[in-house]
């Protein structure tokens, strides 16, 4: 009788402790609330289509996982920075201070990326730059709290320069590009590796960013070059490619370009003038792997267009963030731990292929050499060669690489 009572009390005690523990852990997860991601992209203005692509990529991933991680809901707070760093700063402050986000993501323009750095460092909030490619953001001006999952402008062109010399056999090339940092860095990278192998960039022509008529520059290109390499994106890319053909150059001199010039967003607006253009980027919608085929198919079904590298960048970046939150067991409030997880994360099933981060927070990933072809009536960036494990420093040692100044307008490898 006494034994039975003690047992009953003991069982009751165990049961109540169990009950309290269960209630406590359920309440713990609920008390924490949703994980909030602040997403900054240009949704209006000249880059609205790219910004929407970014947003779609992020949404696509979150929908796939049901907006859930580690037992918590995910809330995506999207803000339009109008492709203007000042507006971007206002929105950044809003999501961090008013909405209390745990991570900041997105970021399109290089100028926005640079503008955000001091604030992010001051507030010690983990940030994931998914698109912008300004070299120095993860080199001489890198920030501790920023993890970039996109690329640097010269990362792909270092690789392409070597490919152009070794595989395509070019020795003399002419370069044209938009007169701003993106053009300088991309062509700088190309020139460096190309000339180190013995090639020569015999002409380098910078055109104002809003040039509409390229005819004066086109007729200036030396006719004895093996190829022409250009850095034009968006509307200038469209008009340049068309005019390159109209002035008879397409038949005579091969045209190579920066990856985004034949981006999946722009290709539908291009015609025969785009056929055969070779460029290099860390992604292509035509990449023939099971993971990418699935990504492209589901994306197309959901958004009725092929994913560009903007969409893939947002998709993979968001996956990066979510996997990092999972790695710290959902403790998104613990910013130091979360940042640590983001810096060490490795993803092997991103649509673009395998990648991991280097010590400066920039990806080491595949660079795909692509060629524009028409397949089933549609233009696409067919992958013709893969260069694996490309870092932002190419084959150079980081500290030696960083001793050199950033690629600029007047960059010349010969000069020390």
């Amino acid at each position, binding site marked *: 009788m006494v034994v039975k009572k003690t047992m009953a009390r003991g069982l009751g005690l165990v049961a109540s402790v169990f009950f309290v523990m269960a209630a406590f852990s359920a309440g713990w997860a609920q008390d924490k609330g949703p994980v909030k991601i602040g997403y900054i992209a240009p949704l209006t203005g000249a880059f609205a289509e790219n910004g929407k692509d970014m947003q779609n990529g992020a949404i696509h991933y979150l929908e796939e996982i049901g907006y859930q991680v580690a037992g918590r809901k995910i809330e995506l707070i999207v803000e339009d920075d109008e492709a203007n760093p000042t507006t971007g700063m206002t929105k950044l402050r809003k999501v961090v201070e008013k909405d209390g986000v745990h991570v900041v993501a997105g970021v399109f323009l290089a100028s926005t990326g640079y503008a955000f750095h001091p604030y992010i460092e001051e507030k010690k909030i983990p940030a994931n730059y998914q698109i912008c490619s300004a070299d120095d953001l993860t080199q001489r001006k890198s920030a501790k709290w920023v993890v970039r999952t996109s690329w640097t402008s010269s990362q792909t062109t270092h690789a392409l320069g070597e490919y152009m010399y070794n595989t395509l056999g070019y020795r003399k090339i002419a370069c044209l590009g938009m007169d701003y940092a993106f053009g300088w860095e991309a062509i700088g990278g190309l020139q460096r590796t190309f000339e180190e192998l013995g090639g020569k960039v015999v002409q380098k022509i910078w055109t104002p960013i809003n040039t*509409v008529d390229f*005819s004066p520059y086109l*007729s200036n290109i030396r006719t004895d070059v093996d190829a022409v390499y250009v850095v034009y994106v968006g509307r200038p890319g*469209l008009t340049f490619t068309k005019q390159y053909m*109209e002035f008879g150059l397409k038949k005579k001199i091969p045209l190579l370009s920066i990856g985004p010039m034949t981006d999946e967003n722009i290709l539908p607006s291009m015609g025969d003038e785009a056929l055969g253009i070779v460029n290099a980027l860390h992604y292509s919608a035509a990449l023939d792997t099971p993971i990418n085929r699935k990504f492209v198919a589901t994306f197309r079904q959901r958004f009725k267009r092929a994913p560009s590298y903007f969409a893939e960048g947002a998709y993979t970046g968001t996956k990066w963030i979510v996997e990092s939150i999972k790695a710290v067991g959902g403790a998104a409030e613990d910013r130091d731990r979360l940042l640590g997880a983001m810096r060490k994360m490795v993803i092997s099933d991103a649509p673009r292929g395998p990648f991991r981060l280097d010590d400066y927070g920039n990806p080491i990933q595949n660079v795909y050499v692509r060629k524009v072809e028409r397949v089933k009536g549609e233009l696409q960036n067919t992958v013709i060669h893969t260069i694996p494990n490309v870092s932002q420093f190419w084959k150079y040692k980081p500290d030696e690489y960083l001793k050199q100044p950033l690629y600029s307008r007047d960059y010349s490898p010969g000069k020390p």
Partner: protein
Amino acid sequence: MSKFLLVQTLNGISFGALLFLLASGLSLIYGVMKIVNIAHGSYFMLGAYIGLTVVLRTKSFFLAALLGALTIGVVGLLMERVFLRRFPLQASPQMMLTLGFTLAFRDLALLIWGGDPYTLPTPPFLVGSVEILGVIFPLYRLFVIGIATLVALGLWAFNEKTLVGAKLRAAVDDHEMAGGVGLNVPLISGCMFGLGAFLAAFGGVMGGPIFGVYPGLDLELLSLAFVVVIVGGRGSLKGSAVGSILVGLVDNFGKAIVPELSYFTLFAPMAIVLAIRPTGLFGRE
């Protein structure tokens, strides 16, 4: 060397031809009516967008040009008659008003056509290039030169040889007197503005296969148009024609010979002309 000269000259003239279509309308509006029409570039852009939609639906470039120009011509007419006439000869309110319209048009275009850039498809019978004395030149650009010449001649004939043209000139020279002799000056003003808008929009469709159409086209071309009007002299058809060709050639040769000064080559002729002859080459006053 002579190949270079030939190509650049042809380029310069074809660019000038497009500038003429854009600037002749502005010369009319700015020169004759003294209105600083900041929305003029918007007319060009909207004309191109409408042309894009029409040509994609009907495959007829001719229809695209016609509808694009007519629609915007009506828009211009309404803008003048309903809004601008409330501020006769008041520069600031007019500029504010046209600036407001520019912003509204821009957002409207973004809403309807989105933010992606497009080029208008070149009409099939004008695709390709021709070889002229050893240089390859796009056929379409030659066509543009031809069209602009026709438009210039047409405007000249209209102005000098027709009764309507005479009425226009009268209303411009002295609108009180013109009203006094029974001319419907307000209607004439409205129609003139509408004609300016019509020409700009027509230029937009014509320029579509070369420049493309995209958000931002409106303001990029506006500065070019003003340069032509300032260099050529406002209110003068001859001035627009000469100014366009001059600016086209200088800009082209400048960019080809010294690409580093690309930004400068456009505004240098304007500065020089303003310094020597403030009213422009053929301007009145």
